[in-house]
């Protein structure tokens, strides 16, 4: 059944969710797009962030977004540590293709199963005053549950973009992806810069996780749906481009929303993966790629 109101609602919901997808994909854009580290464990870190927010919320009554922010330094350190292991074990030896992938797959697994053992398969969610309310703007309904994460995600995206383009370290990160030697000549250590960038990428997972659990209930295997989504977005957006990531996220969000409502939710998940396969086959550089 088709009506203009319904279509509008669906598109708006898609945009809001798409904004959130950007928050999740930023980490991949940095790690994979700029650093060439195929971190398929990123969604698992997001889930870890979600559970972190859950614990902070249920045990201490903290607002989830606050919990996400507080978790960022912890995740930053975690990311730096993971990168160290990755670098010494694989990147230095030039072995990163096979073993690096397996390493991250193993990490995904360990995170997922540990959460499973600790918290079980039950879905967890957070309680916050504004979740469940909806605000009406003219003909459009904006559920806070989606609008607030979208707003936070946009803020995160803008912040990251400013960091990469305006600060010394940010530009160093961009440089390291293009030319190691020039960077050394400028006096910065490529390995330290890469570790910094990767740590930042994992830190974003903390916030992304908090947003995720605000949008809907979470259980350990939810991360798997996001693996395809984030890589589809990273590839579609053109690796390494923050603006591209945002655009791709919005597109994916709207497409998923339309498919889900008009064709049935069974197909929504296949949309992101289908896009991924299509883009890889047709235009691997993505929309904004270099």
């Amino acid at each position: 059944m088709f009506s203009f109101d319904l279509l509008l609602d669906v598109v708006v919901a898609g945009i809001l969710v798409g904004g959130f997808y950007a928050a999740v994909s930023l980490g991949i854009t940095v790690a994979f797009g700029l650093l060439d580290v195929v971190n398929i464990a990123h969604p698992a870190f997001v889930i870890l962030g979600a559970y972190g927010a859950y614990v902070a919320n249920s045990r201490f009554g903290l607002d989830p977004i606050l919990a996400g922010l507080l978790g960022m330094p912890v995740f930053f350190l975690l990311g730096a540590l993971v990168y160290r292991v990755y670098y010494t074990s694989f990147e230095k030896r030039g072995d990163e293709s096979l073993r690096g992938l397996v390493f991250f797959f193993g990490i995904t697994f360990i995170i997922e199963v540990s959460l499973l053992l600790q918290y079980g398969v039950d879905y967890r969610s957070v309680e916050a005053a504004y979740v469940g309310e909806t605000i009406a703007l003219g003909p459009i309904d904006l559920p806070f549950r989606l609008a607030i994460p979208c707003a936070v995600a946009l803020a995160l995206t803008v912040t990251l973009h400013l960091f990469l383009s305006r600060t010394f370290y940010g530009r160093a990160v961009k440089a390291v992806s293009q030319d190691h030697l020039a960077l050394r000549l400028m006096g910065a250590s490529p390995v330290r810069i890469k570790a910094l960038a990767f740590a930042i990428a994992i830190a974003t997972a903390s916030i992304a996780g908090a947003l995720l659990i605000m949008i809907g209930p979470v259980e350990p295997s939810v991360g798997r749906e996001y693996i395809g989504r984030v890589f589809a977005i990273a590839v579609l957006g053109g690796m390494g481009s923050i603006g591209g990531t945002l655009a791709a996220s919005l597109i994916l969000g709207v497409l998923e929303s339309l498919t889900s409502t008009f064709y049935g939710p069974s197909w929504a998940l296949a949309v992101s993966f289908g896009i991924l396969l299509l883009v890889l086959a047709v235009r691997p550089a993505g929309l904004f790629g270099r």
Partner: protein
Amino acid sequence: MVRHRRPGIRTRIIVMALIATFALWGATAPAALAAGPIKIGFGMALTGALAGNGKAALIAMQMWAEDVNKKGGLLGRKVELVYYDDQTKPATVPGIYTKLLDVDKVDLVVSGYGTNVIAPAMPIVIERKLAFIGLFGMAVNEKFNYPYYFGIMPTGPEPLTDWSKGFFEVAMKQSPKPKTVAIAAADSEFAQNAAAGARQNAKKYGLRVVYDKAYPPPTADFTPIVRAIQATNPDLVYVASYPPDSAGMVRAAHEIGLKPRMFGGGMVGLQYASLEKALGPMLNGIVNYHFFVPEPTLKFAGIDAFLKTYQERAKTAGVDALGYYLPPYAYAYLQILGQAVEGTKSLDQKKIGEYIRGHEFDTVAGKVKFAPNGEWAKTRVLMVQYTNIEGNDLKSFEGPGHRVIVYPEEWKSGAVVYPYEKAKR
């Protein structure tokens, strides 16, 4: 770079020896001891998707074993439960049941929880001609037609339509009569079966189906689905879903302001204490199925004592705190097995099977009699309406008055409040 020499002969020998040692170690898994207690074997979901219910069921089953042993056991011998975790994975079932029967040498077997783990065990029990009671399997025996399979689930002889019959019958008794229905079902075995039954019932009562879609179980966001349903303006909304989706549906319906005349039907999970607590007053007005509620019309023999003991244990075990859904039936299926063993004074599978076929049993889940196809002779799927739920704590749900039984007639404990909007308050 690694050198790619082929491993020499010595390497191969050592490696083969390692393999052999491991294989032997695996093969000498603990073998069973003979005679003594009567051993009842089964697989149960202690981890995996259905672990919450599986663990609750196990508590009930252990309670049964203790109660029986306190009274002297079965046929003068103690009973012992031998079980393994099937991880809610069908692939483990053949191995588990053959281990139980061939290595542990159990005397009797019962099933795990759910169709997915009952069905793979069927060929084994059929081949060895065992009496087999299944816990909450949906129409498992339709394909096998095995005379000694008995299903513990109050659905009745026609499980597909019995599930939703109550919902539609109650709806059709209201005025103005509803004309349209929306059906939303999870893309998994039980929900699709329930949806198929709902469609048949809709046809029977002349309702027009205006929305009929399935969604994949890992859906997290139900607002698109509810929006699409809302757009078709249905009188009735029948949902067949599993616990996480049921919660998602209720929340989404609340957020969007879904306004059918009756909402609910086949949502699994609304019966769990944890979900009831989480959803709280959002449940008011929903008419959903249930198998047991603490209403005064359902005072079965021994159920109060059972619930009291169960609730004590559930506190520390981290399982469903109230135990109104699966546990009474897990206790009951062992009760039936035990009564059959005592009734035939033997462990002969055929005699036990025939006994179960021909008798009515008194259990904590009420009187149970089986139809020829192994399902219950009479359906007892209850339709309850949630009312008077004030807050998000267990107190709001304890005791009678919160889940009014509106169907079937013989167990009714109150009238349905219709339409849904009126009942929401």
